[in-house]
């Protein structure tokens, strides 16, 4: 069973629908005991970091996420869930976050251009992810696969070894990070067609070990 963490951060049913489509049992939950019992945990979310951290602290789920990571259980962060896994976010006048991965989350610089045209923020739409090395969660993806992004802030891990994949949008940023039993992606696998579903399916079978 996969537990999808519900911390009032947007509509979480799309991740559940994608797992149901893959015939992977899942539950959307805000209860600590469900997270402890689950074999795997998905930490999604859409919205702003400040509000998300208030909800996570208020409900006690902040400590639970940390506990899930420390237990070695496979953990998948998606979008805002990925961002609050870092130490801090520049969003909402700097928000202190969970600090599971060293580094921060920064706003895309204004005035980015590409081929003479100004780049819009948020970064919204389909873009490539250049994977660094092999990881079981990203197995079987073609090199030119694209994923659906919607975000104005990007992950900036302190430790280069935590970067699992990179994306170009005005700058080059870490669109996927991996550390031990944690994989976290800035894009939405549940909205990224067949290759996104492949990531969810890989995760549903991953034991949390990081064999190269």
């Amino acid at each position, binding site marked *: 069973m996969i537990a999808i963490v519900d911390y009032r951060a947007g509509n979480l049913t799309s991740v559940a629908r994608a797992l*149901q489509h893959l015939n992977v049992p899942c539950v959307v939950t805000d209860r600590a005991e469900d997270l402890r019992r689950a074999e795997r945990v998905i930490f999604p979310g*859409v919205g702003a970091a400040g509000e998300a951290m208030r909800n996570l602290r208020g409900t006690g789920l902040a400590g639970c996420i940390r506990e899930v990571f420390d237990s070695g259980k496979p953990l998948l962060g998606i979008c805002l869930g990925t961002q609050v896994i870092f130490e801090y976010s520049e969003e909402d006048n700097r928000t202190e976050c969970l600090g599971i991965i060293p580094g921060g989350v920064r706003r895309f610089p204004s005035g980015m251009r590409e081929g003479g045209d100004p*780049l*819009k923020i948020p970064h919204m*739409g389909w*873009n490539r992810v250049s994977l660094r090395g092999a990881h079981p969660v990203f197995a079987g993806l073609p090199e030119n696969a694209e994923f659906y992004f919607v975000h104005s802030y990007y992950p900036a891990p302190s430790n280069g070894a935590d970067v699992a994949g990179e994306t170009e949008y005005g700058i080059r940023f870490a669109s996927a990070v991996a550390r031990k039993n944690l994989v976290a992606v800035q894009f939405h696998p549940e909205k990224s*067609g067949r290759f*996104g579903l492949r990531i969810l399916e890989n995760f549903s079978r991953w034991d949390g070990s990081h064999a190269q």
Partner: protein
Amino acid sequence: MLSKRIIPCLDVRDGKLTKGVKFKGNVDIGDPVEVARQYYEQGADEIVFYDITASSEGRDIMIDVVRRVAETIFIPFSVGGGIRTLEDMRRVILAGAEKVSVNSGAVENPRIITEGAVAFGRQCVVLGMDVKKVEKSAKIPSGYEIVIQGGRKYMGIDALWWAKEAESLGAGEICLNSIDADGTLDGYELDLTHLIASRVSIPVIASGGAGRKEHLLDVLTRAKADAALIASIVHYGTYTIAELKDYLSGNGVKVREVW
């Protein structure tokens, strides 16, 4: 580098497509869920549903269609048509749509844009604009005026002003439909698209007029659109989405090429 998006638009009334959609092999299909699935599998980057249902019973049917689409395709899709209240928006989003599009409802009550952005996030709120070319005047300095009711009612609102206003109110994207070009198959309204796309900092989806593949190239390059809405050009089997993308890619436009 971000891909330019190719977005088929499906018009739905009482839960059925208003026009059949022919795929290669000439099979005619009227079920929006089935057609959405086919376009998803054929490489659509997103799908737009436009609900032209008038009755409240028909609206409930549409919510059921949205729910079934969300169980079937795993790319973003938006739903528009008759959205007037926050509750209308909530129903569509909770049923599984990624985005909801407001058009005349926002012209009549601009606060709906802000309310939607606060409740669901800006990225969920698409402003649909129906626009007609008019004489430039003090009231309509851009020469493009907002119309509603399928172009029958002129609102005395300048299209460029409204686009910028909607952006500041919280719209996350604009779907810009030229009533003059719509249905002509003669190409998108490039001047209008360029005017709006170059003056707002949110993505602009160009709509109305696509009849040949060259039209998509023009609107995505010269007119600076972020995405192209297509209807007849794929519904009647003139091109597949893959053929359109191959052509665009061959002409230097970054598109999503594998799916």
